[in-house]
Structure formats: C-alpha cells, structure tokens
C-alpha cells in the first residue's frame, strides 16, 4: 500500500498528512517520485522534512524541520479551507461504495451498545477542501460495507453530483488504495470500481473482501511491483524511525 500511495503523490505540490501509513507514503514520495512534495501536518507544520518516520503528528522533528509552524485554527481556516492543499489522505473504519466514511460509531447488534471509534478529527473538512483525497485501508468485508452505520465524512454521497450540490470545492476521493488493489470512482456514477489489483491478487479475492457487489473495470490492471529503489527508500525510512510502533495506519489523524 505504501508504495502505491507514494506513487499517487507524484504530481502533488502539497499533501495533508496523517500519521501512520499516510506519513510513510508521503515521506516515501519525497524520497522517490516527488522530492519537492510539501508535507503539511494538522498539528500546524508546513513543509516538514523529517529524516525518520514520526510516531505522532506532534513529533518535535516535524516542527523543527518545517518551513513554518502555524496555530491549529490557522491551519484549518487559511490553509485547508483556504484551498491550499492538493492531496489529503484518509483512512476509515468503514467505507461504502461511494467512498463515504465512518470513523464515529459501529452498530454491534440490537442488544449491544454502539462500538465507539475515535471520531471525525480533520476528516470532514479534509475530504471537502483538499484538491483530491486518497484513501488507504485494509480490504475486508468489515471495512468495505454495504451501508455505513454513521456518515462521518462525505466521499461522493450517493452519486456524481452530490458533492457539487453540497458546494464542496475538492474532487473528493479519487482512489482507494488497499492491500489488495486500487478502486476508483466511476466518473458517471461515482461508485467505486476495481481498476487495479496488486500482483498475484485475483479479482475474486477482492470481491470476496468487499461487502457490496463490487463493480470491476472492463480491464483490470496490475500494479507495478515496488522497484528496488522504492524498497530501498522505504527500508531506509523505516530503519531511521521505529515504524513498528506507529502501527495502525490512518487511525491517528482522522
């Protein structure tokens, strides 16, 4: 996932980064396809150039290597809402076929209380205001659901015009990168379509891991395996930090 997520940042000027997999991908992009990529962390750092993978979005090195550190309200108002960020990264506990996101509560059955998730964090406004959004999460029927228990963050709503009707400036989720492949919204319907699988993954396996009847592109591509350079850069980043600790991708900075 990291390598494909990093590749998806090749054209971006600025990226709003959450800790975990997004941070790994963004730093890998800086080490490979996009050395000039400007990393922006919601803790207030603009242009961070960490030498190791930060464990939290408040890591001291993020501030020390930044071009600027701004207060959190300014980050959300002038920079995110101000339309300055090309790409945002989001994870999800649940995603539906329109790339809508739930990170708030899950229904655990009639006799049980709702299961509590971390909540929204920056996600609703990241999804609304970034030029586009990349989603990264593991592929399972638990995550890819028929119906969200709660809409924390709007992806494409229920169709291709919903974002426009709501006046959302950005393009919304343009790719959902998983450990099995890549899904992209169909321009005509906004429904997620499987467009690529990773090497050795079958379409059937992706279907089985998806909680709705998955639409599959006429020709499904296969992602390029990581190049030796990409793997070396990834190894170097992880060796410098303690990647084992940052653990759960995308869970920290919704």
């Amino acid at each position, binding site marked *: 996932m990291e390598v494909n997520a990093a590749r998806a940042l090749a054209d971006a000027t600025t990226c709003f980064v959450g800790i975990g997999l997004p941070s790994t991908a963004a730093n890998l992009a800086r080490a490979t396809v996009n050395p000039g990529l400007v990393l922006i962390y919601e*803790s*207030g750092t603009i242009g961070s150039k960490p030498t190791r993978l930060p464990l939290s979005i408040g890591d001291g090195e993020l501030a020390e290597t930044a071009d600027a550190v701004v207060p959190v*309200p300014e980050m959300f108002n002038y920079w995110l809402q101000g339309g300055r960020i090309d790409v945002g990264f989001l994870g999800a506990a649940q995603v539906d076929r329109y790339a809508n996101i739930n990170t708030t509560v899950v229904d655990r059955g009639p006799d049980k*209380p709702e299961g509590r998730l971390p909540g*929204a964090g920056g996600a609703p406004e990241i999804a*609304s205001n970034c030029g586009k959004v990349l989603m990264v999460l593991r592929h399972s029927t638990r995550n890819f659901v028929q119906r969200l228990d*709660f809409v924390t963050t709007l992806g494409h709503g229920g169709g291709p015009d*919903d974002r426009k009707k709501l006046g959302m400036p950005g393009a919304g989720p343009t790719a959902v990168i998983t450990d099995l492949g890549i899904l992209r919204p169909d321009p005509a319907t906004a429904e997620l379509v499987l467009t690529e699988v990773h090497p050795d993954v079958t379409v059937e396996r992706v279907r089985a891991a998806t909680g709705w009847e998955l639409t599959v592109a006429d020709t499904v591509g296969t992602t390029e395996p990581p190049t030796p350079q990409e793997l070396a850069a990834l190894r170097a980043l992880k060796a410098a930090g303690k990647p084992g600790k940052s*653990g759960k991708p995308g869970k920290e900075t919704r």
Partner: protein
Amino acid sequence: MADIRSLQDAVADLVHDGDTVAMEGFTHLIPYAAAHEVIRQGITDLTLVRMTPDVIYDQLIGAGLVRKLVFSWGGNPGVGSLHRFRDAVENGWPRPLELDEHSHAGMANRYVAGASKLPFAVLRGYRGSDIPTRTDTVSTVVCPFTGEELAAVAALNPDVTVIHAQQADRAGNVQMWGLTGVQKEAALAADRVLVTVEEIVEELTPRPGGIVLPTWVIDAVSVVPGGAHPSYATGYSTRDNDFYQAWDPIARDREAFLTWIEENVRDSEGALTR
C-alpha cells in the same frame, strides 16, 4: 495578574466541581501534572473540552470525574483506542459519559469564537456528515452577500483552561514555543487560566515561533518541571513514546487502571512528572 503558586493551591482555587475545563496541547505541552492534581483532589462532575482527548483525558474519565466530553478525535496517538473513554461511552463505567462531538475544524473555530467573545463561528464544514444530528452546537447560517449556507458552531468558553508552557517570568508572563496548537485561543476563551511551566526565568527571551501570554490574562502560574510528561516540552524534553505504548494494556483493564492511578497519581504527588 498571575500569581505564582503551588500546583496544589492553584488547582484547588481555580478548578471546581461541575466546571467546564479545557486542557489543551496538540500532542506537545499537554498539562498532565495539572490533570493528576485534579484527580488527587477528586474534583468531579467535570465537562472536559479538548480537540484530541488523549491519555490525559482517558485518566480523568477512568477516575470517574467526568460527566461530559466535548471533542473531535479520541485516541491514543500512534497506538490505538482510549480504552477508558470507550468503556465509559459503551458501558457507562465508572459513570456514563455524555458526548458533544465535532470535527477538528469545528472545534478550532469554536475556540476562536470563544477567544473573540463571539457567540459562534462560521466554517465551510460538516457537509454531508451525520455529526450535526448528534449535537446541538452545530447549526447553519446563510451568507447575507452570496446566499451560501455555511456551518455555524457555538463558541466554547471554558470556565477554566489549563495549559503547560516552557517559561514564565517573575511577573507571570508566559512563553511557549514549538507546536502551539490551539492553546492561545483556549486560554483567551476561558474565564480562568492556569499555566504550568518548566521554569521561571529572569527575562523571557523572544523565540522563533514563540507565543507570549501576558500575565494579566492568566490567573495562576505553577512551576512543574516535566509537567507535560509523557507529552513533552520542546527545548526541555522529548515525547515518551514508550509510555503511550505502555498505557494501552493498563487502560484495557479496569483493575489495572485503578491500581495504576492509585500508585502513580493518588499516592504519589508528581511521581509521573519527574
């Protein structure tokens, strides 16, 4: 004007049962020592406000002092869930926890409105989200110039804001630097302000990225070196990531949590903040 006084006295004077309390700090400069003093004094029925209720609020919630939580993202950054928070919400243990839940952008703007003494703030947010169905502090306003409908969020004006900073001078002026998050807004929005600091210095030297809060907006300054641990204070300490990892198994288990609080907070003034 700020009085420079012991943490014990400052907390006793400024934080009361039933108060709305904001302890802010975006990963950096989180005022753990002050929270532990609140636990020791058993100040209860609190409404806690914080963008990212971190381990600091997990501890206060688990200690049974919290009636309501106003927040936007509740987790142990880089580790996982806040188990005491989840136990309170899901099972009402040790007491039910009412929630007022927002997005980060909404919370940040609620503090801005509070600091500006406005009743609300405007943002382009919450669109298409179910969040407004569960709170009465998100509404809408229509732009009188363009007709666009925008989100309105109610101002946050805590009774008390507690923050940690690097330095104060003898007059009680405070300087913090590094990631300064939403602390200025949280402090200026509050009726009362308590600041714990790493040290008192003869003169505050202006720092790059430094924010100064003048003494006349602060009620009390308490000197608590290491008072942000396991969070950190740029220039004084680094984040104790091992503590955040170690917290997970402690917080998963009610008994383990209670024992930890007893041994490390209640019986042990400042034990954690050395």
